[in-house]
């Protein structure tokens, strides 16, 4: 016997085995329909005896297992039902012949047989035969069940007669020695008259009778017989049969204790019979027959006698004892190599019992033993079956990890290299079933909370196997999904080398089958949720979401969730993300765009390439809202390694916000600003769209032309211009910035594409006095001092410049920085289109920075007495430091024209007595420089 029945359970000892086989050509689906109906008759109450016969049906049974029928009678095929198609009467004799042939296979053990003929009508079908039933078609056979029941009853009669026959064998008669196939040769030439031999025969026969009693529904009889058999066989050291007797004892006790059966849901007995009342009834018939010598029993008594309860309790094993006896039986079986299958099945039966008793530890010991039972050369299919059953049994006792382990082994067995046609589908299916055991779900959401906790190395292996199996199954979509999942959830556990390998194979797969965001449904109902690559690249949590508004048409970074700015319909808006690449190689992210809801949004995808293990890397995602309203930014989508993912912010680790709401206002015009001067770096303090800077000499005026072009789609209706001078300590004379907007306003409304120019005058009038220490010279020397060179360092600085010598050093220039800075911001407010109606406007600002240099220097100062004593002449040497001609004018004096880099003496008639007041007058010099237009 080489084929174990892994589904066996203790109560199977109670059943009689009936084989249902198709004969000739029977459509498979039709056969199984009939088979199903037949198997529906799994227990039959026998008339007049209140006993129930249980039937086990098999549509396939290896004849060599039948040879063990004497050892345990439930292994014996006692009934055969053949199902055949027969359309014409001509075929009938042949069919009949075949049926006989089929009976021959199990001939020695069969009690009875039936042939179900489908499709035959007419004369042949009219004949009344008990062993043949004729039906016109597979659909028209209403009394199949009835026929089967009759058949079972006829089996019962044979069984009962055999039981009585054997049970009444007196010990004086010569008892035949029952033996299992491999024993037959051992007993050749043995002394059949020895006491030992006789006892052996008796013991084996007792055991056999016990089996028959159990099958015939006489539980208590069976127990008594088994007990006696155990005694007899133990005394002659007939271990194999002792084991069988012990197991029989266990089986009968289990049936008594657990009328619901031990096979679990699939093998559960019909509830109608296993209910408490029925169960009692079922065991009652045997109960009254508890006597020391069962050989003298009759079977016709019905009345229940309470005194038999004592006997029952004595004969039936306690729950604890059942396991002990199973252990003993198994250790006895273990002594025979050829009884491996019996041993294995006994282990399985014991485990099922223990599972019901919730004694998982002991069950695991039985299973552990079962693992090591060597059944010789197993076919690959048998190996798979064996591991699967082990897995199921471990599951049954709550050892989910162990169960997963064996299921995985079974899966690997499906695709063992020795198998010519590896069953990748079966392998994949089994692998999927192991997932719960490794506490792995295929939903990436379960992994998004905090750090990954689990058996990473083991889980990683399993995922790799899933990927491989799905690929070999020819389902690249599945491989991509599993591989994506692996990459997303196990990234922290992959070495650099593995990261490379995984991504390479992912790219290979996606080149055939790009990964997407759809849920993949497997045929068995499992759904594989999409795996967004939220870690490739990783969105940095701490910088959060940075959004650039365009309302101000200025880049403003705001790190909030409900944005305090608005976007404008029809205009490009930006969102900045800070991302980094955790991979040890360059990561190419394609088709990266925003995921939004609320407003029609046209996302303009970006492609980027992040260097290996980059630091934080800003990514700007742009898009255009097409309608006004509130828009919520939910996340972003990417395409990495050919897998497109939608990454929602709420699912991201560390990102607190679950989206960002921005108001989109109706469309507004948009202006582009350009100036006649080149752009410069932004001013320090303000956020500006653009800035210009220029250098002016004190007193110089320059015109700046600002050109505003309407680059939006809407018409520009209003335009305002304001300026703000940034706080400066310098005293400013006159207006710094002046403009005339009238001309520009006359051009309004400004259509799209049109532009308007606004001239802005920039004039710098600053006070540069008090920088030179002329007066000290004057004070020291008094009036008499004349013609002394002014020791102003400026002179030394400026001279080289005037003479165009490169001697002037930057250092000295910095040391005596005489350049003053003026800063101002020009702000344009404008509006138009639909947005204007709702009161929205845009701002555009221009920063102006002017570095003002002094245009003249006083290099020397001296005094001359004037004609009046109340007056004196003040002589000043004035140096024009510019490259232009300039006119110097002072109060009450004629203008003095100075050419470029020219120094002239300037005489000023002073009317005050004290020279000390010079400092005041000095400040009153207003140096106006007029630009020499000629250059």
């Amino acid at each position, binding site marked *: 016997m080489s084929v174990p029945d892994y589904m066996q359970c203790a109560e199977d000892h109670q059943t009689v085995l009936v084989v249902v086989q198709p004969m000739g050509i029977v459509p498979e689906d039709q056969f199984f329909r009939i088979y199903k109906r037949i198997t529906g008759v799994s227990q039959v109450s026998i008339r007049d005896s209140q006993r129930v016969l249980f039937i086990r049906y098999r549509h396939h049974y290896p004849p060599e297992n039948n040879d063990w029928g004497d050892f345990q009678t439930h292994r014996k095929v006692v009934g055969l039902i053949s199902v055949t198609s027969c359309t014409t009467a001509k075929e009938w004799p042949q069919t009949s012949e075949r049926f006989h042939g089929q009976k021959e296979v199990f001939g020695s053990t069969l009690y009875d047989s039936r042939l179900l003929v489908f499709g035959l009508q007419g004369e042949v079908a009219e004949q009344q035969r008990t062993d043949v039933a004729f039906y016109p078609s597979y659909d028209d056979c209403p009394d199949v069940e009835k026929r089967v029941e009759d058949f079972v009853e006829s089996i019962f009669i044979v069984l009962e007669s055999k039981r009585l026959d054997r049970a009444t064998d007196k010990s004086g008669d010569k008892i035949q020695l029952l033996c299992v196939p491999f024993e037959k040769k051992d007993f050749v030439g043995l002394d059949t008259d020895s006491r030992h031999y006789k006892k052996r025969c008796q013991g084996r026969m007792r055991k056999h009778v016990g089996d028959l009693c159990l099958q015939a529904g006489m539980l208590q009889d069976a127990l008594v017989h088994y007990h006696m058999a155990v005694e007899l066989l133990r005394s002659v050291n007939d271990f194999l049969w002792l084991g069988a007797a012990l197991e029989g004892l266990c089986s009968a006790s289990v049936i008594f204790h657990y009328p619901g059966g031990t096979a679990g849901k699939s093998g559960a007995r019909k509830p109608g019979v296993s209910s408490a009342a029925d169960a009692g009834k079922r065991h009652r018939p045997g109960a009254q027959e508890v006597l020391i010598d069962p050989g003298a029993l009759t079977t016709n008594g019905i009345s229940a006698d309470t005194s038999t309860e004592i006997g029952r309790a004595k004969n039936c094993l306690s729950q604890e004892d059942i396991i002990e006896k199973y252990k003993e039986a198994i250790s006895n079986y273990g002594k025979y190599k050829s009884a491996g299958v019996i041993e294995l099945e006994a282990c399985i039966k014991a485990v099922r019992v223990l599972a019901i008793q919730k004694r998982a*530890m002991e069950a695991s010991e039985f299973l552990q033993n079962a693992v090591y039972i060597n059944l010789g050369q197993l076919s690959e299919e048998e190996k798979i079956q064996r591991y699967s059953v082990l897995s199921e049994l471990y599951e049954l006792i*709550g*050892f*989910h990890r*162990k169960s997963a382990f064996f299921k995985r082994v079974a899966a690997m067995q499906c695709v063992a290299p020795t198998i010519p046609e590896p069953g990748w589908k079966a392998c994949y299916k089994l692998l999927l079933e192991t997932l719960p055991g490794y506490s792995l779900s295929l939903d990436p959401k379960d992994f998004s909370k905090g750090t990954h*906790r689990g*058996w990473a*190395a*083991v889980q990683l292996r399993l995922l790799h196997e899933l990927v491989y199996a799905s690929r070999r199954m020819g389902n690249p979509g599945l491989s991509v999904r599993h591989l994506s999942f692996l990459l997303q959830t196990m990234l922290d556990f992959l070495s650099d080398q593995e990261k490379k390998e995984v991504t390479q194979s992912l790219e290979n797969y996606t080149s055939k089958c790009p990964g997407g965001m759809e849920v993949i449904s497997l045929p068995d109902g499992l759904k594989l949720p999409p795996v967004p690559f939220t870690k490739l690249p990783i969105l940095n949590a701490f910088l959060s979401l940075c959004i650039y508004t365009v309302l101000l048409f200025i880049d403003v970074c705001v790190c909030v969730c409900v944005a305090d700015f608005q976007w404008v319909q029809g205009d490009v808006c930006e969102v900045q993300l800070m991302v980094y690449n955790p991979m040890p190689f360059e990561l190419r992210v394609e088709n990266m765009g925003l995921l939004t809801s609320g407003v029609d949004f046209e996302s303009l995808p970006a492609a980027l390439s992040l260097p290996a293990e980059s630091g934080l890397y800003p990514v700007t995602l742009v898009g255009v809202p097409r309608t006004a309203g509130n828009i919520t930014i939910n996340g972003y989508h990417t395409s990495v390694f050919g897998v497109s993912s939608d990454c929602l912010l709420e699912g991201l680790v560390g990102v607190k916000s679950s989206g960002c709401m921005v108001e989109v206002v109706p469309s507004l015009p948009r202006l582009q600003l350009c100036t006649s001067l080149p752009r410069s770096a932004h001013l320090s303090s303000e956020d500006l769209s653009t800035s210009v800077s220029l250098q002016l000499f004190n007193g110089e005026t320059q015109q700046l032309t600002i050109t505003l072009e309407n680059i939006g789609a809407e018409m520009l209706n209003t335009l305002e211009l304001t300026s703000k001078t940034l706080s400066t300590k310098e005293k400013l004379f006159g207006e710094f910035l002046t403009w005339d907007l009238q001309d520009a306003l006359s051009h309004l409304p400004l259509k799209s594409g049109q532009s308007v120019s606004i001239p802005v005058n920039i004039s710098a009038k600053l006070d540069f006095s008090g920088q030179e220490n002329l007066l000290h010279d004057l004070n020291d020397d008094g009036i008499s001092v004349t013609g002394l060179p002014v020791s102003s360092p400026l002179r030394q600085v400026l001279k080289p410049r005037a003479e165009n010598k490169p001697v002037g050093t930057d250092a000295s220039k910095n040391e005596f920085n005489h350049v003053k800075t003026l800063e101002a911001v020009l702000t344009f407010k404008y509006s138009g289109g639909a947005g204007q109606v709702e009161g929205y406007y845009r701002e555009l600002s221009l920063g102006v920075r002017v570095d003002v240099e002094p245009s003249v220097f006083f290099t020397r100062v001296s005094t001359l007495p004037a004609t009046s004593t109340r007056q004196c002449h003040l002589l000043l040497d004035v140096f024009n430091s510019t490259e232009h001609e300039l006119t110097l004018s002072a109060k009450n004096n004629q203008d003095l024209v100075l050419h470029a880099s020219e120094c002239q003496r300037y005489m000023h008639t002073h009317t005050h007595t004290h020279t000390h007041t010079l400092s005041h007058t000095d400040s009153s010099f207003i140096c106006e420089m007029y630009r020499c237009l000629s250059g």
Partner: protein
Amino acid sequence: AEICITSMDNYPLYIRSIPTQGELKFHYTVHTSLDVVEEKISGVGKALADQRELYLGLLYPTEDYKVYGYVTNSKVKFVIVVDSSNTSLRDNEIRSMFRKLHNSFTDVMCNPFYNPGDPIQSKAFDSIVSTMMVQAC
């Protein structure tokens, strides 16, 4: 030989095995042995609630390894796998190894910067495990 610490939710806090090439096999061994540990704990909970014995003894023998278990009062599990051929390690030795491991683990838990449930990265713990491994192999 391998030493593994798992949290109360049965995910590993610390795994160390030598030689390292057969690591995955050890992982499988320890992972499946958790079934037995859980079963033993639940059994103890029912019958011997007051029992202070933390040592679970031999979880199960395989052909090549012996697997021993230990569980702290906070249901943190320690598992030690040793070679079956190593006869110098008797029950008592294993018991003392577990006790040492438990003491060291307690030190780790006392570290205010350690969050219970995080993988153990303590160097002190590592070195104690190393000396135990040398002893066990």
